[in-house]
C-alpha cells in the first residue's frame, strides 16, 4: 500500500453555487456541515430510562421525548420518533469513532448506527432563511411557533428532511439523505436566488 488514503468526497461537493449580489442584510448563507458525526440511537426494549440516564451522565443532556434538540458542548441529541434520536457531535475529527463510542457506552440500553455518511447536513442562515424555507417546508417557522431547540421531521421538495433550529439569527440545520443532496441543493438555490445566496465551505 503505497497510495495515500483517498480524500473524502462530501455530499454537497459541486452542488452549491453563490447567486446574485448580496444586498447588505439580505439573502441567505449556505454552509455544508461536513464536520458532523451523526448516529441514530434507538432505545432497546424497555431500556429508554436507562438510556436516558446514560446520556445524562455522559453528556449532561436530558434526552428529549419530543421533536426537540438538546445540546451541551459539542454533543446534541434530537428526538426523531418514539425512543429514537439522532446524536450529533460537532467538529468531529473521526465520525466513525463517535458511533463506536456511543455503541460501547449504550451497550444493552441502546442500539447505535453510524449515519455520518448517510445524512448530508447543510446550515441555512440569514434574515431570508424563513422566506426560503417557506417555499418547501410545510411547517410554521415563525418565532412564536418554532425556535432554537425545536426540530421537525418533514419533507421539502419531495425530499425527507430533518430540520432543527440553532439560534435566533435564525440559523437552521437540515439533514437529508446523502444521495439527494444534489436535488436538495437545486431546490435551495432556485428558492433562494431572488434574495441572493452566499455559499460557504
Amino acid at each position, binding site marked *: *500500500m503505497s*497510495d*495515500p*488514503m*483517498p*480524500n*473524502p*468526497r*462530501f*455530499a454537497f*461537493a*459541486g452542488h452549491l453555487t453563490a*447567486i*446574485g449580489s448580496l444586498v447588505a442584510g439580505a439573502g441567505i448563507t449556505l454552509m455544508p456541515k461536513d464536520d458532523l458525526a451523526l448516529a*441514530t440511537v*434507538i*432505545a*432497546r*426494549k*424497555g431500556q429508554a430510562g436507562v438510556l436516558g440516564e446514560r446520556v445524562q451522565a455522559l453528556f449532561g443532556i436530558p434526552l428529549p421525548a419530543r421533536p426537540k434538540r438538546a445540546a451541551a458542548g459539542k454533543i446534541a441529541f434530537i428526538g426523531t420518533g418514539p425512543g429514537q434520536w439522532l446524536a450529533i457531535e460537532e467538529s468531529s475529527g473521526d*465520525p*466513525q469513532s463517535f458511533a463506536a463510542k456511543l455503541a460501547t457506552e449504550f451497550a444493552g440500553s441502546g*442500539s447505535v*448506527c*453510524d*449515519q*455520518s*455518511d*448517510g*445524512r448530508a447536513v447543510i446550515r441555512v442562515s440569514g434574515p431570508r432563511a424563513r422566506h426560503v424555507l*417557506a*417555499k*418547501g*417546508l*410545510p*411547517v*410554521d417557522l*415563525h418565532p412564536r*411557533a418554532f425556535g432554537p431547540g425545536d426540530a421537525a421531521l418533514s419533507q421539502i*421538495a*419531495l*425530499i425527507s428532511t430533518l430540520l432543527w433550529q440553532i439560534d435566533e439569527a435564525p440559523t437552521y440545520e437540515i439533514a437529508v*439523505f*446523502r*444521495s*439527494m*443532496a*444534489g*436535488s*436538495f441543493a*437545486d*431546490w435551495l438555490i*432556485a*428558492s433562494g*436566488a*431572488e434574495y441572493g445566496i452566499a455559499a460557504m465551505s
Partner: protein
Amino acid sequence: MTPLPQSRRLASGGLIDRSRTLSFQFDGKPMTGHPGDTLASALIANGTILAGRSFKYHRPRGILTAGSEEPNALVELRSGARREPNTKATTVELFDGLVARSQNRWPSLGFDVMSVNSLLSPIFVAGFYYKTFMWPAAFWEKLYEPLIRRAAGLGRASREPDPDSYEKAFAFCDVLVIGGGPTGLMAALSAARAGAHVILCDEDFSFGGRLLSEQFVIDGQSGADWKAAAVFELEQNPAVTLMRRTTVFGGYDQSTYGALERVGDHLPVPLPHMPRQRLWKIVAKRAVLAAGAVERQIVFGGNDRPGVMMASALRSYVNRFAAAPAQRLGLFTNNDDGWKTVADCIRAGIKVEAVIDPRPAIPEAFRQLAIQAGARLFEGGLVQDAHGTARGLQSIDVMTSTGRTESVAVDGLAVSGGWNPAVALTCHLGARPVWRDDISAFVAGDTPPGLVVAGAATGAFDLRSCLADGVRLGAEAAQAAGFTAVAPTVPAASEETLGLMPLWKVTGARTKAFVDFQNDVTAKDIVIAEREGFRSVEHLKRYTTLGMATDQGKTANVNGLAIMAALTGRSIPETGTTTFRPPYTPVAIGAFAGHHRGKHFRPTRLTPSHAWAAEQGAQFVEAGQWLRAQWFPKPGETDWLTSVNREVIAVRGAVGVCDVSTLGKIDIQGADAGTLLDRVYINGFSALPVGKVRYGAMLREDGIVMDDGTTARLAQDRYVMSTTTANAAKVMQHLEFCHQVLWPELDVQMVSVTEQWAQFSIAGPRARDTIQKLIDPMADVSNMALPYMGVTTITVCGGIPGRLFRISFSGELAYELAVPARYGDGVIRAIMSAGAEYGIVAYGTEALGVMRIEKGHPAGNELNGTATARDLGLGKLMSQKKDFIGRVMAERSGLTNPDRPSLAGFVPVNRADRLRAGAHFLGLGAHPSASNDQGYMTSVAFSPSLSHWVGLGLIKNGPNRHGERVRAYDPVRRGDIEVEICSPVFIDPEGGRLRV
C-alpha cells in the same frame, strides 16, 4: 404608427397615474394607457369596445364586466413562448409594452369568416353534436371533430416550453381574510388590532373592492381615502401580511386554503430569479370570506352586443379608471343599486338617454334623478332587444308598461339584474348554497369548519352592513384563534337600499338572447334542454354546457336556473343549484408543478461513485429515483451491446467492478433480531453464525414473493439486511409494520443504512487479487479465512473502515466492499487502479443484468407480484420448522398447482434468433389464444459467454419440461420463434467458480 389619443378618457378623476403613460398594442394597433389601468379599461379609454369573438357563433363581443367574472373579453396576452390564451382583459394589469391579440377571429376581429356559424346557428344549438355527428362513427375523428374544433374553441396555446418559473410556498396565520373590499379591510383591521396574525388576500392589484369603483363616503372621507388609511394601518403592523394580486382559489380540509399569487404577471417579463406565479398553501386557524358579490345580468335579445355592460362595471370604468364606455347610455335595472349609475354618469358628463326599470313603481328620488339627467324614464318597462354591430350598439327596443315598443338610440347599455354573493369557497368541501327569497340569490349553506362569511358575500349588499360585518367577524375570528378582541367602532356610512324585483329573462325578444356568454348558451338552448327532458340542473349543465366555461358561469348560472324553473313551473330552490369546485378562477398548471418540472420533476438520487462514473462517460439509467451507470462505453464503441459484451467478458475472464450502493441496506439490532428475521423470511436466520451471509426471500401475507436479498450477521445481536433497489423503502416499511403492529414485544431496533455505505461489487477470477491490494495488511481474505458467503470487517486504503462480503450475483468469485459513502469516490478510483494490471473494467446495470440472467437469478422481472417462491424455484428454502409471513396462504391449492407458470431457462432453437422479453409461450402449432397461453418470457440477454441469446421465463410446469420445445410468440414485434426449455442456470451450474 403613433398611437391615437385616449379618446374616451375622462378629463379628470380616477385612480390612475396620469403622470406616466404606458404604451401597449392590441391587434397590432398602438395605444396608450396609465399605471392603474387594466387592459380592459385602457381599451375602453381608447374607444375600443370590440374585444373578441365568441366561442361557437363567433359573435362580436365587448367587455361585460370589470373583474374576474368576465366571460367575453378573453385575449391572447404576450407573444412567443409567453403567449397565454384566454386571459381576461378585465384582470390584466396594464404594463408598458403589453401586447395582446383578440381571439377566435379570422382574418380580423372586425371581419370574421367564421361568423358564418352564426347564420348556421340552427345547427349549433344545444345537443346538436350528440344527435348529428353520431354516424358514421369513422367520420367523427377524421371529419367532424377537426371541423368543429377549427370553428369553435378559445385561444391558441403556445407550443413552446414556458420560459418562466413558478414556485410553491406555505403560510400560516391566525386569521385569513379573503377579499380586500370594505368588509375584508374592516375584518383585517379588527383581527389585527386584537393582535392576531392576519393574512389579507385580494385578487386585484389594489385593495378596496367596490370602494375603488363607487362614490362612497365613510366617516366623512371618500371611500378611496378611507381605504388608503386602512391599508396604511395594516401595512404598519408586522403581524399582518398583505397579499395583492392573490386569488384564494380553493378551500381544503383542515382550514387549508390554496392561493395563487401573480408575482410577475404585471411586468413585461419577471425580474431575474423572480417566479412568475407562486402557489400558496395557507393554513389558517380561522378564515373570513369577504369575497363580495357578482352582479348578474338580465337575459334579453342581443344582450351580448358590444356596448352592453354590467352597470357596476360601467361605474368601475367611470369612477376608478376615468374611462367612458359610452357617450349616450341606456340603463336597464331592476334594483336601486343600478341607479347609482345615473348619478355617476351625470358627474362624469355621460349622457343618460333612458332608464328602463321594470318595477311598476320606483322611489321618487330616482324619478328626480332621471329628470336631472335628462333621461327618459320607462317605469315598468323592459329592454327586449339591443341592436348593433361589431362597431357598437345602435339602439334598444323598449317595451313600455303599456305594451308599446319604442326604439331608443344609445351607444351603450348598462344592465343590473341584482347581485349574486360569491360563495364558491364555502362549497369546496361539499356544501351547497341555499336560496334566499328576500334577496333572490343563493347564499352560503353549511360553511367549512373555521370559515365565516361576511359582507356582500352573505347577501348584505349595503356598505353599512359590510363594515359592521367586518368589525364583528374579524374580532370573532381573532377571539376564536385565541386573542382578546375589542371590536372597533363601526365607521359611519351612508344608507343604501336594494329594492330588487327579480327579473331573469325578458319575454318577447326577437333576436338571440344569451345566458352563458363564454359558452354561447342561449335562452333557447335551455328551452330545448327542457323539451328534451334534461330538466335536472346537472343534466341542463351538461346538455347545454351552461356554466362549463373558464368563468364557470359566474354571470350565467342563476339566470339559467331561473329560466329552467320558469319553464318547469318550479321555484328556483326546487330546480336546484350546481355547486362550485376549486379553482375559483383558472390556475396555470405550471403553478401546481412549481419547482418540479423537467429534471426537477422528482428528486434524483446519486450514487457515491456518480462523479467518477460521469468522468468515465458512463451512460446512466433511472432506477426509481436513482441514476445508475448502465454501461461504460469505450472510445469507438457505438453500440450498447458491444460495450455490455465487453464488460461481461472482462468480468468472467478477469475482474470488474460495479456500484451496488443503491440496494437497500437495513441495520437490525436487538436480542430478538434473529426472531424477527425468521418470521419475515421464508428461511431461517436465527441460527446463522456470526460472520456469515445467507440468501433469503420474503413473502407478502398472501404468499406471493415480495422481495429477496442477502442478510449478514455482524454480531450476536446485529444483522444487516440487503433488499432490491426497487423495494428498499417498501421492505423497511414492512419490517417496521411487523415490529410495531404485529410483534411489539420483540426487542428489535431497525434503521436504514442504505445511504451510509458506498458498496462495490468486485467480481471475476481476479477479484481476490484486486481486493488484496486494497486491504490493509493485517486482514486475511484467503478462501480459507473468508469463504463464500462470509463477511468480515476490514480497513482499506490505509485506514478506511469497511465491510467485506463474499457474495456474488454474477456467478464469479466476487466480493462486495462497503465503505462509508464519503469514501466511495476515492475507493472506486483505488479499485480501478488496483485492478488495472488484471484488466479490470467498470460495469453497469446492463452487464449486471446479463450475468444474473446467465446465472438464473430471479430479479424484478420475475418478482412480478404473481410468482410464489415455488414458482421461482425457491420452494426448498421454505422452512417447515417455523412460521413466517405468507406461509399459510402460500399453501392454497391454486398456489401449489404444478401447472403454475414456473421459472425455466430458454434458448432459441435456431441459435441465431433473438429472444424477446414479453413473448408468450405456446405449444408448437397451437393457435395463439389466451386459452393456449403457457406463460411468458420475463428476461432476456445476449450471452457473450455462449454467443447466443438466453432467456428466463415463467412457463407451466417449467422445471419438469427441460428439453421440450415451444413457441415464443410475440405479435407486438412480429416474433414467432421456436425455443427450447432448459435449466435457468446457463453458466457454471455447479457453482464452482463462486468457491475458489
